[in-house]
């Protein structure tokens, strides 16, 4: 749109704003994300190793580790601690599987006031829903292509 007083075009304004906007401290954020993410992964590895030392099969050990981390993420969210970690850790708290369970518990807490079925129940997957939809859909496509390849062989 053109306005009589502003002499910039929308594109020029956009570039001007980009130049002015305070930038996130990228290297500081990367450092925090790296350390937090790495640390959460180490917790997962420790759990897995403990299971293996009790003669649990590697595949089951991995499952136990994943389930434990999902529990950890949900627990830390329910005691209002995960958001405090996320403020500093950024991607280090979003990317690990703990971030997945955080994204399920967080909206559910807020919508509890609208009831358990329609409030809590339908908002649990507000953020995590797309993750399930697109990952399962893409695994379907992978499976289909793989099946075709096996057919041809």
């Amino acid at each position, binding site marked *: 749109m053109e306005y009589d007083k502003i002499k910039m075009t929308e594109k020029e304004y956009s570039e001007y704003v980009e130049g002015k906007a305070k930038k996130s401290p990228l290297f500081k954020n990367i450092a925090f994300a790296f350390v937090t993410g*790495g640390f959460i992964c180490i917790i997962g590895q420790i759990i897995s190793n403990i299971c293996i030392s009790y003669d649990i099969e590697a595949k089951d050990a991995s499952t136990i580790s*994943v389930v434990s981390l999902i529990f950890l993420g949900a627990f830390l969210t329910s005691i209002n601690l995960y958001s405090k970690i996320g403020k500093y850790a950024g991607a280090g708290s979003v990317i690990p599987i703990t971030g997945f369970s955080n994204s399920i518990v967080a909206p559910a807490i807020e919508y509890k006031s609208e009831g358990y079925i329609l409030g809590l129940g339908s908002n649990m997957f507000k953020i995590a829903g797309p993750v399930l939809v697109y990952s399962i859909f893409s695994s379907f496509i992978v499976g289909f292509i793989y099946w075709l390849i096996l057919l041809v062989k």
Partner: protein
Amino acid sequence: MLMEYLKVFITGGIICSIGQVLIDKTKLTPARILVIFVVLGVIFTAIGIYKPIVDFGKAGATVPISGFGYSLANGVMEAVKEKGFMGIFTGGVTATSAGITAAIVFGYLGALVAKPKVK
């Protein structure tokens, strides 16, 4: 053993750092970033380049959400090998069933007991 944990730390750290660059440099929201990572996990596993990362970094590659894609892709490919066509439908979700159930159960319980608070 220390070497093992160091590899885990570095692999997990690098994957999360890539996510951080996306958060800071693009306008992508957390939900979109999670979708990108998990779908890339599926695709990279299918074309065979994620397995070496898992072999090197272990939990550093399976704990990030891309690891969920890794489990899905492996699950579906194994099921297709064993059961043929039906495997396309059953393989992925079966392999990740524990994770999905845990997410729903702990998610629900966590939300039940929690009280909303301000930052």
